[in-house]
């Protein structure tokens, strides 16, 4: 318990507001990297995912990509791209890695969301004379939203974890203190920063859970829910960190 007390003393020390990297700045950096990368990844992955879900084509490629992405070691990619881009462009290099790692979850969420919809609902829309665009915007997008939010959630958590590791290349963020703590053998700093990282991840996870609860339209159909629930591909957390 002594360790824990020292860690909290580190977190709440007034020294955290000054120094090379003040704690609020590190948290802001961490969040900026996370949301910036997830936003870029979403802009790329969501339209492609919807296209795959709507047309039913290219699913194999998407499945292969999300499988392959799981095997990519985040630390290795960050180090490799920083070396390839050069130290001057290390932020760009790191953001590229975060985006690459975030894309597969979002892509999977976007197409799995559309795939999970009961086909008869979509056929009903078509039978009523809806155009393909209307089907996409009025049926597939709202009904597929919960799995899409799930995809964004795992992408975000993946990036939060990777940003922590990326402090190794001098990117800042909360991982900075962990690396510094290891070098200085300052365990209170390591544990204090880790506690903040954990809290940050849990808070973001909770926010996505709230978002999923309020943003997703109520569907009376237990059939849709049941089918989603029984699909192992959508239930398994999709990526490593």
């Amino acid at each position, binding site marked *: 318990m002594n360790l824990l007390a020292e860690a909290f003393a580190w977190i709440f020390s007034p020294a955290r507001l000054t120094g090379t990297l003040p704690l609020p700045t590190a948290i802001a950096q961490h969040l900026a990297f996370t949301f910036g990368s997830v936003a870029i990844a979403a802009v790329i992955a969501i339209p492609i995912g919807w296209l795959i879900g709507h047309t039913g084509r290219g699913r194999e490629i998407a499945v292969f990509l999300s499988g392959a992405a799981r095997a990519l070691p985040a630390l290795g*990619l960050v180090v490799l791209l920083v070396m390839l881009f050069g130290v001057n462009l290390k932020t760009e290099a790191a953001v590229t890695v975060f985006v690459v790692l975030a894309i597969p979850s979002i892509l999977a969420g976007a197409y799995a969301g559309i795939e999970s919809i009961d086909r008869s609902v979509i056929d009903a829309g078509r039978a009523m004379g809806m155009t393909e665009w209307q089907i996409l915007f009025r049926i597939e997008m709202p009904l597929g939203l919960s799995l899409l939010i799930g995809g964004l959630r795992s992408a975000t958590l993946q990036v939060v974890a990777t940003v*922590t590791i990326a402090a190794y290349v001098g990117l800042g963020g909360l991982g900075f203190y962990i690396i510094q703590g290891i070098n200085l053998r300052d365990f209170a700093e390591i544990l204090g*920063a880790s506690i903040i990282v954990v809290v940050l991840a849990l808070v973001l996870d909770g926010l996505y859970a709230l978002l999923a609860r309020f943003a997703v339209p109520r569907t009376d159909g237990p059939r849709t829910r049941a089918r989603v629930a029984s*699909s192992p591909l959508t239930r398994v957390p999709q990526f490593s960190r």
Partner: protein
Amino acid sequence: MSWVADNVDLIWALTLDHLRQSAIAIIAGFVLSVPLGWLAFRYTRLRGTVLTVVGLLYTIPSFALFAVLTLFGIPFLSELNLLVALTIYAVAIMTRSVTDGLASVDPGARSAAIAVGFGAWRRFWTVDLPLSGPVVLAGLRVTAMSTISLATVGALIGVQNLGYLFTNGSQRRIIAEVFAGVVAVVIIAVIVDVLLMLAGRALMPWTRRTSTPRPGRLRAVTA
């Protein structure tokens, strides 16, 4: 790429360390998640709690988890720390797969087993577990892949495995070394994945081609 040619022995030794660490975590995770997943399946009231807790464990970033584990008396810079963290993530993924797998077993098969007099223990091992195999295997493959790539983070806490090529390559500015590390990790992840898939086919001949139940369109057509 001459760096690779000169250091084949190092890469091989690190690969063996890497495989050993990953295998321990994957097997330990599997062994722990079968009873946990069964509990969550069998006792509906426990299900929400168990699945929420393992879900939250999975959200903890690895680098931070290493530090949190020291509160339980595990040394920070140690292989044990990496192994425990990897096992926790494996349990987090597998428990849900085991629960989903058991839920995917045809209740008719279960009733038939009860009707011919199978006890709970025998029914679990000879009916429920084998029939939930395809879903459990899908989870195991995800677990294996992510464990193998995640293990590299161990290099940051001084553990010897393929992640060492990243930290050492970064310090010595040898791009080939880092690249070799990334490629080696991906290759062993793919090999292990293929081996698991083949093992699944051998152990569950009745699944044949569709070892993973596919959601969505295909099922919708038959519905």
